[in-house]
């Protein structure tokens, strides 16, 4: 059994693999299963102020691409923003979780909780494994929309030593953010918007019953 193809297939190939998925994948997902998985429509009920500010800052573009700021347009911007974030592999250089070590709570903000990731925008989660740039899971409101627009257009113009690529295709011919640009700024400004000014992680903690 241990020296032939059948044993390798049944015990190694199937049994041990199933065991690993059960213990290392299925069980961890069960441990957050009591936290409701929010849809984008539920998330977008709380429109972040930065999204409304984008409508004032770039009225023409905002009107053309998203109409008026509100839960519906916010949901659309979040979805497109996340898709853009994935298409450009932002998550390969910017992680999305804060660890309880290496002074990360001082640098970024509260340590991440499992419940924060129980929503539709985490299929799959964008944890990331490398930080060429800083973590973004506490980015909401840290910098202005203008900063982000300038930074996406030409990163070294705001951070001279930056090695981030420029994304000119996020902008129209007048160098104003286009639909992708507005959406990706919205998505980044949303990351961590559920943390209140005192540093408490608000929404997921309620949902999780104090997990």
């Amino acid at each position, binding site marked *: 059994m241990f*020296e032939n193809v059948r044993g390798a297939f049944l015990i190694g190939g199937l049994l041990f693999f199933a065991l690993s998925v059960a213990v290392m994948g299925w069980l961890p997902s069960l441990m957050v299963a009591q936290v409701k998985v929010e849809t984008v429509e539920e998330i977008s009920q709380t429109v972040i102020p930065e999204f409304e500010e984008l409508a004032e800052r770039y009225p023409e573009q905002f009107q053309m691409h998203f109409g008026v700021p509100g839960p519906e347009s916010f949901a659309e911007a979040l979805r497109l923003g996340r898709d853009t974030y994935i298409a450009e*592999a932002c998550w390969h250089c910017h992680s999305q979780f804060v660890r309880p070590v290496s002074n990360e709570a*001082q640098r970024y903000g509260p340590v991440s*909780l499992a419940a924060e*990731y129980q929503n539709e925008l985490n299929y799959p989660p964008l944890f990331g494994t490398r930080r060429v740039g800083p973590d973004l899971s506490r980015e909401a409101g840290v910098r202005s929309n203008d900063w982000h627009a300038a930074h996406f257009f030409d990163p070294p113009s705001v951070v001279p030593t*930056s090695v981030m690529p420029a994304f000119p295709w996020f902008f129209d011919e007048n160098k104003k953010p286009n639909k992708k640009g507005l959406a990706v700024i919205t998505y980044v400004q949303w990351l961590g918007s559920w943390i209140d000014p005192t540093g408490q992680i608000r929404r997921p903690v309620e949902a999780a019953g104090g997990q």
Partner: protein
Amino acid sequence: MTELSNDKPFVSHWLVKAHLVAGFVWFLTAISAGMLFAFQFHQAYPLAGLEFFSPGRVRMVHTQLVAYGFIANCFVAGLYWAVPRLTGVRVASERFLGRTILYVWNLLVLATVLMILAGHAQAVEWGETPVVLDPLFLLGLVLAVIQFGTPLFKCRDKSQYVSMWYFTGALAWTGLVYFMGNFFPQYWVPGTGGAALIGLYIHDLVGLFVTPLGWGLMYYFVPILLKKPVWSHALSLVGFWGLAFFYPLNGVHHFLYSPIPMYAQYGAVASTIAVEIVVTTVIVNFFATLRGRGDHLRHNLPIRWFYVGMIFYFITCLQCAFQVTLTFQKIIHFTDWVVGHSHLVMFGVFGFWIFGMIQYLWPRVTNNEWYSRRESEWSFWLMTTGIIIMFLALVMGGLVQGFLWSDLAPFERSITASIPFWMSRAVAGILIIGGAIIMAHNMWMTARGRKGVAGATAA
């Protein structure tokens, strides 16, 4: 189909050659993509401003091509060579399945590249294959299981050689791993549960697809080249079953200190260290096999590629036993240390084994002697120097980054401090590409039947 009917009854040389060529072409593309991406770290990206060649997208092309273009094709070539010889049974179908797998798989790889560049990547690390292609890749893997599973399961020997266990394990695992990693986090399991599955996927792709095929081929080629059996069958058993049990449990170690439940993180750390112990037994077994045949390292090029790869394997695994601990993770997680580690594994180990295989197989499938021994030597030394520089530069740079972060230095400080290390990495990349181009030239001239000046060829 004249090219399929030759004097070797068991093996289609044409299929071996076709997969080696496809794999090598993808290899050249993959390292070019990596090199291109390296320019971004000096704000000197040659194609800046072009959406289709955005650096982030090119980075995903680099990793995807290494796994599914380079390694998959070359290992399938190895399977076409080794499986019928080990089992005494032909693969399921050379003409139909063989050609279907070859063409469909490589078209899918090409489609992956184009779609990632067009902005349709999936957010699974090392599984960025667009979601619409995932079911097709899965189908390709099923076809490969039929193709190679047929001879493996038809072989009726009571106890079978260790390579066959590894191949069987890899065939069973690869499709399952692909399904788990590309489908569950995308559609059914969000958040930390999905992240745990992605961790498993990242690691299983190395541990349950690449590693077992690699070791299976080593267990096949090394005794043939050294003309003696593997030192200890008992250690072979420990190696295989240790890998089969512990390796699948490792994956969560990619997300230590994340919100994934700590029991899973502790479990991943413990089983990772267990894997390193198992690995040591395999390394001992192979180096004991080499005893008394040390001169082969000098004149037998495939053996040299294989054993240098094994030394790198031992280094990465030893490194892993330390870096996986929570103590090391505080500093080195998220840094270039890990990037250095993964380059040493994928290129220094599995890439080297594939080059050794090419060194052995290419003259046999083209029916020509190697064009130039000197060019083979140049490829070996350029690539060896390159990967050592790359590994050291990234590991050291990673430590600098990690300590600067933990010291709460401004983030940009970790960028400026990294520049010399990234520069060394780029130089290492140039050496590797140089070695690869020389190897491509050597293969091309060999296939055309040219004979170089320093013609003597080994093995």
